[in-house]
């Protein structure tokens, strides 16, 4: 049997993600229709007149059968219509799009922070089993998953803003003194670098530091734990013994042979970690007044702005499906065998 090409593997993975997307759409649809009482009244808001409610019922198609309603819902989704937000008066899609870069920047920064710490820590712990660093990593792994993100965030604010005064006020992406860089990617760090505005870059980095560390600490524990376990099991395998016996340099063995194999379980764990990260994002954004989609959803929830909440849930779920798809693809790149069996 010939080995399938990378392209066909990629296509197969993408098709494999379709049922998840369908499932996500069905669940969000059910959630919209499961609102207690009259969904039309909720979407119209508390101040709406009877005519407005009737009109919304008509536009939402709530007077039709459920399957019909579902088809209408999917049609609206395909046209990129998630309804209007009551609190901002904008369409939910435009609200989400303007706020998404802030969330992405925060999540990515948190992920980078936790990976740069977790991988070396896991490797160190695995190469010196039983040492203090090994015990340290184990304690860290248990303590890390016990930390409530919102609590860590507040603790960091107290220490670094109030006591030491080294961090800027935890109020958003950029202090009022600065104007945001020209919008290219929406990520302030990248944009300010591209436009060569180093001062804004430093200011944005300062604002980003604490929330990213808060988020990263949460993801650090599972990643360090898995790296350690994977490295331990790879290092005790036969091919490593053979490589050692052949007289290869220790760091060639460690990084060229062991690490690449140990990466597979780490990448798998990334999927779970993203589930945590996207959820923790909401809490961190609330603590640091970060203008991302998480804090948008929180204020929408409090204001009973249902269209906005549903749009947020759907966006996050689709983002998560896409991230999982990327992880699957990354898996195929790291280990070509992974695509062959399925």
């Amino acid at each position, binding site marked *: 049997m010939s080995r399938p090409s990378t392209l066909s593997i990629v296509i197969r993975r993408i098709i494999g993600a379709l049922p998840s997307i369908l499932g*996500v759409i069905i*669940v969000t649809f059910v959630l919209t229709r499961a609102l207690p009482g009259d969904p039309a009244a909720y979407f119209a808001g508390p101040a709406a007149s009877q005519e407005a409610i009737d009109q919304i019922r008509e536009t939402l198609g709530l007077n039709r059968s459920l399957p019909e309603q579902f088809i209408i819902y999917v049609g609206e989704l395909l046209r990129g219509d998630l309804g209007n937000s009551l609190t901002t008066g904008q369409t939910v899609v435009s609200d989400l799009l303007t706020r998404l870069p802030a969330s992405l920047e925060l999540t990515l920064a948190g992920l980078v922070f936790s990976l740069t710490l977790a991988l070396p820590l896991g490797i160190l712990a695995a190469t010196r089993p039983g040492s203090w660093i090994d015990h340290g990593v184990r304690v860290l792994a248990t303590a890390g998953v016990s*930390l409530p993100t919102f*609590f860590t965030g*507040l603790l960091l604010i107290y220490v670094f803003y109030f006591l030491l005064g080294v961090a800027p006020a935890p109020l958003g992406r950029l202090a009022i003194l600065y104007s945001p860089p020209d919008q290219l990617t929406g990520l302030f760090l990248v944009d300010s670098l591209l436009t060569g505005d180093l001062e804004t870059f430093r200011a944005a980095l300062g604002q980003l530091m604490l929330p990213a560390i808060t988020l990263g600490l949460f993801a650090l524990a599972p990643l360090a734990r898995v790296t*350690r376990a994977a490295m331990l099991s790879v290092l005790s395998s036969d091919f490593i013994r053979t490589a050692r016996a052949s007289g290869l340099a220790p760091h060639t063995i460690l990084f060229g042979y062991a690490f690449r194999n140990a990466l597979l379980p780490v990448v798998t764990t990334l999927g779970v970690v*993203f589930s945590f990260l996207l959820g923790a994002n909401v809490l961190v954004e609330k603590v640091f007044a970060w203008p991302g989609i998480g804090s948008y959803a929180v204020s929408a*929830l409090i204001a009973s702005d249902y269209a906005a909440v*549903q749009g947020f849930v759907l966006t996050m779920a689709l983002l*998560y499906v896409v991230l999982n798809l990327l992880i699957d693809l990354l898996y195929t790149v790291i280990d070509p065998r992974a695509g062959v069996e399925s």
Partner: protein
Amino acid sequence: MTLSQPVSPLAQVRYILSENYVTFGAFLLFFVMVIFALLGDAIAPYDPLASNASIALSPPSLAHWFGTDDLGRDVLSRVLVATRLDLGIAVVAVVLSFALGSILGTCSGYFGGWCDRIISRIIDTLMAFPLFILAMGLVAALGNTVENIIYATAVINLPLYTRVVRAEILVRRDAGYVEAARLAGNGHLRIMAAHLFPNVLPVMMVHISLNMGWAILNAAGLSFIGLGVRPPTPEWGIMVAEGATYIISGEWWLAIFPGAVLMLAVFCFNLLGDGLRDLIDPRMRT
């Protein structure tokens, strides 16, 4: 010591605990939390709802160990009384998802075929959501009440239980003792409930303990963003949220104490879970 020598259960427990100081410590902490949950309002030195503007925002002192909040309420009393609500939400949610997950997982693993395919599909769909965000969506759709926080926490924990039970049943489905039970004329229901499921329980205990911590974190996270529990009810998540405003001006005790107790509770369940795992199945350790 030979194998035939009888060992009293007490001696065995003592032996196990002497080998696991950390687990023992976690167990003690768990015991203390249960006492606080049961007798919190009797132990609390002050009324958790009584406000007194003259002592508002006073730092920790001998009279008020954890200080007082913006309305002059005693933080220690509020933290103590909140134990029942926080643990209660988590326990009920975990029990619900354990019960439902066990039934779904057992059916899925035992019958296989269509039953398995449908249940696995539903679970996969739940797993396609970032779980905390699914919980937010559920509470938004069902209504902003404490009961719905419990249901939402139960739903997002459901995949874990269903998957673990299914996998454990699957490897035991064709075991000799199941075959024997079937030949002896036991029905499907009896085989599943009386022969297969008890064998899964030890592994499930580990998962329940680890999951409890996560359930507490989730419930507190939901109330931190303003869902479910309403002020002035004392609850750890909402207390941290209320104290968050004051941390910038240096009144740290409002948020730090409830947050630290919350962290301690989660840490305790995680340590218990780790300890149980080492006892029950050391191979699960990573």
